[in-house]
């Protein structure tokens, strides 16, 4: 396989979306169009016109048009809608064309009434399936024609739709929780798997199927994740992933926390990614507030994010080897990860979840001696990576377990919303850092490793090579770290500057309000996306001119990737499924949020 950067190999018609969108803009189905601060064009379409319009876009966008995200907004009570069409709920479809430059568009559908309905699109894009279930679960919006519109994140016995504005956000708003024996029985019975619900047969012509619960507690599902397997012997006939065990309502919390105090929550979404999660969030807030981040802060951010990419990839690499039964690599790789955390701790004071980014920059300047620490690590890791190559990647048993297993094509990847290493493993050299450079990535040199077969082995190989590329990026950051402030001089940054607070009352009042309430971000909508450790991670923030967000949407790569499991696991053995799960690289907190 070649590990060099080639532009969008495997993806055809790079600028198809632009043409298709301009066609659409001039068609009469457009109710309104909206230009937001993040530069993504927003088109409003009535529910009845949605399917034909999307079908046409998909046809013209060919295999390079990805349904990146589907989400909803509760518009009831929102003050600053600036002439957007009347709606009590809005469903948002975010499309992304994997062209030479990332080309994006948001299509919004206004819905009225308390129990709105609109046509589903899971036949156009298969990955719409889970997104539509999520919206039904959290907003109570029905999608007609959906094959299985049931709750996905909350338990099947749940009755409310938590992301609606009239739903409480805190435990203190509820009476004390109690669980009677009958309720417990009821809850447990609700978790029983009923194959007929999914249209599965209990037996074939000559044998009975075994239904095996893999998880939610199982050594190889990487967290609380349940897959129900329909087995014939050890061969998997079909699989049903069941998620939501790790759902903490991160999006709902965003509506209660101030813009500043939400930062630590983001760390815990992809808990292996640390500050990588802060990145899209603070970028989105900065876009809304119109803050320009100084170059030194940009480069510190990139450097820390890349360190976390290495830490996360090392965990992936080690646990992947562990999943196919190799005991030792995980220990070596966790030792290396400890060294990364040593550096992170020296800079941030925390290890896994430093919450180090701030609106407008980072929390503090780099400590004395930081570059020596990093340089020692940069010199040491490549040697160890070479050893791991010999131990893992060139191990014939390891190859036998991962080559040709769980393969999908680039077209399938786009169809299912797969991004990151999982996409690059099937050929396309598509990386958000290159195709829509944010922070200072446009000044940094790095290659985009790709695979050819899109199987487990290639996904691992891409991850391993990405560690080397991250090292390269970090070295450039260390060598070229600019001087200057680490935080923007802007009234909306948080925490606000304190230097003059004891000298004049006006500054003191501003400081007091900004600290106790947090900054008031001007109304609007902005989305920021990064190439996170596992794929594209984006935050869409809507401000209604308050101290908290009106809607915080977190689009995580793991959610999209898990949806593919049934497709990949049909016909393979249980052991292969474990290899596939390992190679997908997900954490459940990133799936359930």
């Amino acid at each position, binding site marked *: 396989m070649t590990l060099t950067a080639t532009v969008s190999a495997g993806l055809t018609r790079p600028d198809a979306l632009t043409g298709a969108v301009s066609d659409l803009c001039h068609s009469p189905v457009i109710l309104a169009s909206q230009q937001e601060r993040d530069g993504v064009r927003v088109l409003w379409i009535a529910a009845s016109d949605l399917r034909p319009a999307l079908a046409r876009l998909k046809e013209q966008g060919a295999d390079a048009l990805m349904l990146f995200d589907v989400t909803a907004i509760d518009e009831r009570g929102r003050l600053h809608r600036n002439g957007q069409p009347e709606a009590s709920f809005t469903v948002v479809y975010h499309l992304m064309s994997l062209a030479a430059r990332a080309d994006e568009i948001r299509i919004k559908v206004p819905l009225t009434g308390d129990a709105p309905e609109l046509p589903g699109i899971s036949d156009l894009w298969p990955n719409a399936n889970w997104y539509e279930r999520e919206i039904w679960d959290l907003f109570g919006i029905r999608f007609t024609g959906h094959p299985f519109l049931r709750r996905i994140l909350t338990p099947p016995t749940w009755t409310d739709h938590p992301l609606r504005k009239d739903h409480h956000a805190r435990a203190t708003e509820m009476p004390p929780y109690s669980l009677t024996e009958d309720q417990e029985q009821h809850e447990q019975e609700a978790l029983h798997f009923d194959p007929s619900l999914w249209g599965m047969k209990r037996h074939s012509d000559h044998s009975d199927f075994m239904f095996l619960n893999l998880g939610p507690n199982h050594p*190889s599902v990487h967290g609380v994740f349940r897959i129900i397997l329909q087995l014939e012997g050890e061969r998997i006939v079909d699989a049903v992933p069941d998620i939501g065990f790790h759902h903490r309502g991160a999006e709902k919390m965003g509506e209660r926390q101030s813009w500043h105090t939400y930062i630590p929550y983001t760390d815990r979404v992809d808990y292996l990614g640390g500050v990588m999660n802060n990145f899209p969030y603070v970028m989105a807030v900065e876009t809304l507030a119109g803050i320009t981040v100084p170059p030194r802060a940009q480069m510190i951010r990139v450097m820390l994010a890349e360190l976390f990419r290495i830490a996360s990839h090392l965990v992936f690499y080690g646990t992947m080897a562990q999943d196919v039964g190799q005991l*030792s690599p995980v220990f070596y790789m966790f030792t290396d990860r400890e060294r990364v955390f040593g550096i992170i701790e020296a800079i941030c004071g925390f290890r896994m979840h430093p919450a180090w980014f701030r609106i407008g920059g980072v929390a503090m300047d780099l400590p004395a001696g930081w570059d020596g620490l990093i340089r020692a690590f940069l010199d040491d890791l490549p040697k160890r990576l070479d050893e791991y190559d010999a131990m893992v990647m060139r191990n014939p*048993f390891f190859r036998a377990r991962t080559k040709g297993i769980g393969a999908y094509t680039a077209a399938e990847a786009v169809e299912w919303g797969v991004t990151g290493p999982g996409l690059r493993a099937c050929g396309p050299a598509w990386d958000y850092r290159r195709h829509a450079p944010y922070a200072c990535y446009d000044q940094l040199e790095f290659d985009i490793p790709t695979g050819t077969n899109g199987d487990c082995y290639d996904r691992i190989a891409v991850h391993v090579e990405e560690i080397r590329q991250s090292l390269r990026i970090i070295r450039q950051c260390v060598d070229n770290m600019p001087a200057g402030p680490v935080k923007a001089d802007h009234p909306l940054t948080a925490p606000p500057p304190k230097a003059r607070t004891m000298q004049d009352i006006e500054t003191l009042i501003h400081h007091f309000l900004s600290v106790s309430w947090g900054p008031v971000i001007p109304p609007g909508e902005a989305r920021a996306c990064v190439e996170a450790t596992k794929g594209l991670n984006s935050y869409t923030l809507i401000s209604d001119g308050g101290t908290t967000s009106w809607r915080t949407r977190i689009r995580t790569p793991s959610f999209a990737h898990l949806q593919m499991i049934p497709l990949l696991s049909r016909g393979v053995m249980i*052991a292969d499924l*474990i290899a596939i799960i390992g190679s997908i690289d997900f954490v459940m907190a990133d799936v359930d949020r």
Partner: protein
Amino acid sequence: MTPLPLLSILLTPLIILALATLLTWVERRLLGLWQDRYGPNRVGPGGLFQAVADGIKLLFKQDWIPPFADRGVFVLAPVIGMMTVLMSFAVIPVTALSGIAGNLNVGLLFVLAMMGLGVYAVVLAGWASNSKYALLGGMRAAAQMISYEVFMGISLLGVVMTAGSFSLYDIVTAQTRMWFVIPQCVGLIVFLLAGIAETHRLPFDLPEGENELGAGFHTEYSGMKFGMFFIAEYAGIVLISALVTTLWLGGWQGPVLPGIVWFALKTGAVVVLFILLRAALPRLRYDQLMALGWKVLLPLSLLNVTATGTVLMLRSAG
């Protein structure tokens, strides 16, 4: 052969059990060493008493039988596992003077028979647990151990033909001039691989494959019943290593040091090899394991028998 048969009948199982328990500690320390970490090093000198502490913990655990299990068979399975391994040791000639059963003229067949019975422990455990993971583990075990039994037997034939006897004593004494590891190296490799499969150790630990099946056939076991499976596995490793020593490495024979020391050294080296394999290799998939067995190891062991037979015939003719 032994001066005090009764005493040795009592002592041998105790020694084997102690050794197997000790081996759990040795393995954990060695794995720790190879994996850049410590392993158990707190209890006693170098953590030596960790094995004792674990044993005590297992003994005092509640002896729980899942309500859905087949009680009788569920209890019987670990006993079979333990018994068959211990019985095999009866014919292992640690020195020229020891061995409970003495110089049994079909010693090797006896060991093979015991190993064959050992399969029942795993299969019955998987079946009696009445749990899906245990059942899958039991199924894997049945397929794996029965297939590997076949060429484990055939791989031994080369040695038997060269020594001209099934008695383990005679096989050791036949190696006075040259250890069988040289003429019978193919047989040794096949036997070692089959032995790993037989004791279900990595990379052939599919019956328990924790990443796939939780704990496989012993998922539902806890307390001392689990402990018996655990110790039987380690005793099994000692047994396979002792057999390798006896059949290929010249048994107790060696210069200067007394026979028992040589035997222990050689067996210890093979045991360490077992642990090293566990530290180094990933697990094969079920069908890959079967393919390796039937398509590579079986023809190889048959070829070995044919070649050995031809050489012996030519030699006796010439």
